[in-house]
């Protein structure tokens, strides 16, 4: 995790930033109900400076930049832009005052073209009414040449790969005069190579005088490109430090508040018989494009197999196909001796598959149900929780009381609604439910996304315990660190295929990064972008 040496050249050759302040925040506070998303935040950024906002999920980074961009108003404090402290009314006002933003969830209309998206809000018009799309195309071409970000102005957003969508999003921000560019988690969806490209672009922009605020929770990127770092924890700035004077370990400590290195204590695995065998699986996504393309893997009892890969390479569809939520086009999924390829979600569950879904709020819980009801979501129809279609309320409650204690679910009672819990406790509800039935196979997709350190530790421990008790575990995670620390074996997925299987103790991030980008082991690098589209 000490990647300071991989800092791109562009970042080093940059002239030092001036003292002129583009943005200054003074005592900014914002609450949602009882949650203090931001408290008393003070920071500043000068021309040509790259500042990283570093913090865990839920530390208040996104709330902070939403206020700078005029998407929400602060409860207290001032935002000063180039010496002007007039409150920012709305995004239009922010844009007018020279702020550009690259959102975490791209703010692009999927069914429209690149050119249409770029002109939205300030459309060129011919003859007073007619949209001037020719001028829009010209503008896209000029912008993309100027910044070295190639895009086709007539492509529809939804047809573009994620990396290209992000280039559009950046161009959109740059289509105005921009003194301050804010990027909210821009690298979450990129391959390591695309990330390096992006960091290069940022360095060039900064060299040309743009101030850049860069939000991330990845230490490597901070050290690679930023001049200074503000670390946020629970809505507060807990420290600011020039990148030259720090390292990854110190930043990590500041971020989580105590020395935590994601290392899970586990014994070497003693794998048994194959529990899950996936053969040549082909699955289509919601747009009917092939997402999983001839995927094969085997997971044995008592072993954790981690799937590493950039998001959007078929992981979601793979998990849904195994869990019976999506019907594969071809190929087979076997659980022990049984063919479960065509099983629906209920049958898969009954066959002994536990599934921690990727999207907790959407699939994992029913927010308005009590914890007790959420804990029987996968078994409400079987004894003892119901008999002859009649629900057995006392059995359901006993079950809930036991699991609440076992998984340390922190709530007022088992009757509290799941929606009232924190992210980590919601996730504990999901994990408890899926593990309660002692499944033969546990499929865990992003099991610790957006949860606090305490919950991460608990969930990791439980996953390892399940393995030691003989379960097969398939772990899918966008956090490479999580995969590397938990998995006994790592399969790298790219474009819906396994491109390599590695033993879990191989910790060569650079090698895994190349594999994630679709490069074959030992083959010289190819252009991964054109590769991903076919």
């Amino acid at each position, binding site marked *: 995790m000490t990647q300071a040496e991989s800092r791109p050249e562009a970042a080093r050759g940059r002239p030092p930033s001036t003292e002129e302040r583009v943005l200054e925040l003074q005592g900014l506070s914002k609450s949602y109900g009882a949650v203090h998303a931001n408290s008393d935040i003070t920071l500043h950024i000068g021309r040509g400076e790259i500042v990283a906002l570093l913090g865990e999920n839920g530390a208040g980074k996104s709330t902070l930049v939403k206020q700078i*961009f005029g*998407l929400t108003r602060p409860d207290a404090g001032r935002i000063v832009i180039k010496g002007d402290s007039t409150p920012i009314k709305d995004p239009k006002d922010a844009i007018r005052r020279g702020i550009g933003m690259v959102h975490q*969830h791209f703010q692009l209309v999927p*069914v429209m073209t690149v050119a249409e998206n770029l002109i939205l*809000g300030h459309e060129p018009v011919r003859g007073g009414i007619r*949209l001037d799309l020719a001028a829009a195309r010209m503008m896209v071409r000029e912008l993309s040449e100027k910044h070295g970000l190639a895009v086709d102005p007539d492509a529809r957003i939804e047809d573009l790969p994620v990396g290209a969508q992000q280039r559009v999003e950046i161009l959109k921000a740059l289509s105005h005069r921009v003194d301050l560019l804010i990027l909210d988690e821009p690298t979450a969806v990129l391959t390591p190579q695309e990330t390096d490209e992006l960091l290069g672009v940022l360095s060039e922009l900064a060299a040309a005088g743009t101030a850049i605020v860069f939000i991330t929770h990845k230490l490597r990127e901070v050290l690679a490109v930023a001049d200074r770092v503000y670390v946020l924890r629970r809505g507060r700035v807990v420290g600011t430090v020039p990148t030259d004077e720090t390292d990854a370990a110190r930043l990590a400590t500041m971020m989580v508040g105590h020395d935590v290195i994601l290392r899970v204590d586990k014994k070497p695995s003693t794998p048994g018989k194959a529990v899950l065998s996936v053969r040549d699986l082909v699955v289509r996504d919601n747009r009917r494009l092939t997402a999983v393309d001839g995927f094969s893997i085997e997971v044995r009892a008592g072993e954790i197999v981690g799937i590493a890969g950039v998001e959007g390479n078929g992981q979601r569809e793979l998990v849904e196909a195994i869990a019976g939520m999506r019907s594969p086009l071809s190929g087979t999924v076997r659980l022990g001796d049984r063919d479960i390829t065509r099983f629906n979600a209920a049958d898969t569950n009954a066959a002994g598959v536990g599934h921690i879904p990727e999207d907790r709020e959407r699939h994992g819980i029913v927010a308005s149900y009590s914890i007790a009801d959420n804990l029987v979501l996968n078994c409400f129809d079987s004894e003892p929780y119901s008999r002859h279609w009649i629900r057995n309320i006392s059995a359901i409650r006993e079950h809930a009381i036991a699991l609440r204690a076992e998984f340390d679910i922190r709530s007022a009672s088992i009757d509290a609604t799941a929606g009232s819990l924190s992210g980590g406790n919601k996730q504990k509800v999901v994990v408890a439910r899926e593990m309660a039935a002692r499944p033969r196979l546990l499929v865990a997709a992003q099991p610790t996304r957006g949860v606090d350190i305490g919950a991460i530790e608990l969930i990791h421990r439980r996953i390892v315990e399940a393995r030691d008790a003989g379960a097969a575990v398939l772990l899918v995670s966008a956090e490479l660190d999580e995969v590397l620390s938990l998995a006994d074996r790592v399969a790298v997925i790219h474009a819906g295929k396994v491109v390599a299987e590695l033993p879990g103790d191989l910790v060569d991030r650079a090698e895994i990064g190349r594999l994630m980008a679709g490069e074959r082991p030992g083959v010289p690098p190819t252009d991964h972008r054109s590769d991903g589209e076919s």
Partner: protein
Amino acid sequence: MAGIVTWQFRHLLAIGTPLLILIAAYLFYFVDQTVATSMCANAWFFAVPLVLGALTGVIGERSGVVNIGIEGQMLTAAFASFFTAAATKSLVAGVAAGILAGVAMGAFLAWTTVTARMDQIIAGVAINIVATGITSFFYKSGAQLPVNMPQWNVPVLSKIPLIGETFFQTGPIALFALLIAPVLHFAMFRTRWGLRTRAIGEYPSAADTAGINVNRMRFVNVVLAGILAGAAGTYLSMEATSSFSRGMTAGRGFLALAIMIFGAWRPLRVVAAALFFGFANALASQLQGVVDIPQQFVTLLPYVLTLAVLAIAAGRVRAPAAEGVPFIKGEGQ
């Protein structure tokens, strides 16, 4: 490559289908002039309120607001226009009152769904029920229009055989419906307003970050769309029949929604879809004289057709992604 092929096929279909229908119509015209003319005229006669109603829906849904209250908007407008014209002895006042009634109901829908973020389906159903209540409570029998609505013959165009008689020898509202569809089509796909409207219906938070006031634009669009629903209702009571009867919209507001879907939320395709309904209806009426079909079955046809069309079209067309979902600033995706 595949893109080019589908592009050509789509455009071939778009140009070819109406052309084929036109050729067929003229062939038929050649065989039996009177029947062909009356069938085409009947078809358009039936289609006019559906076009206007469906376009009301198109504007609303393209902006992200589902309007299931078109039926009620039309009914109120039919009522208001007819009784105003009867009371003031002025057709102009009647038409104005009808359009105003459509706009008022539109404003009510906009307030409940956009401002108050009420469930759009419930709001629409409530509007329909209130419209039924108002129009039956204030109903008086015996009122009459001072004169019938004028029939206009558009110079030159009305002389074209078949087409002229169908589209250009009609009343003012039918002519308005004919003109407004291409205008709206242009506006939707070629103007600033259209680009923004589509953006707020597809991905409102993108529009919001581009500085567009999503909720204000939705509000204004739903209110403006009320003009078309008002015209549709006015057409029914003043131009098509010169009378008002209770519940006279008879589900046309819902047929209009089906036509909107069948027309894939595109104004020109909506006209084609409405004409398809019109022709089916005209054909059934025509057949009734030839074969022995009970009258009731002919009346039923549009409803059954709606169900069939929805069952076929629903899976194939894509609705604006954000329709039905209230937009709350700062909670965007």
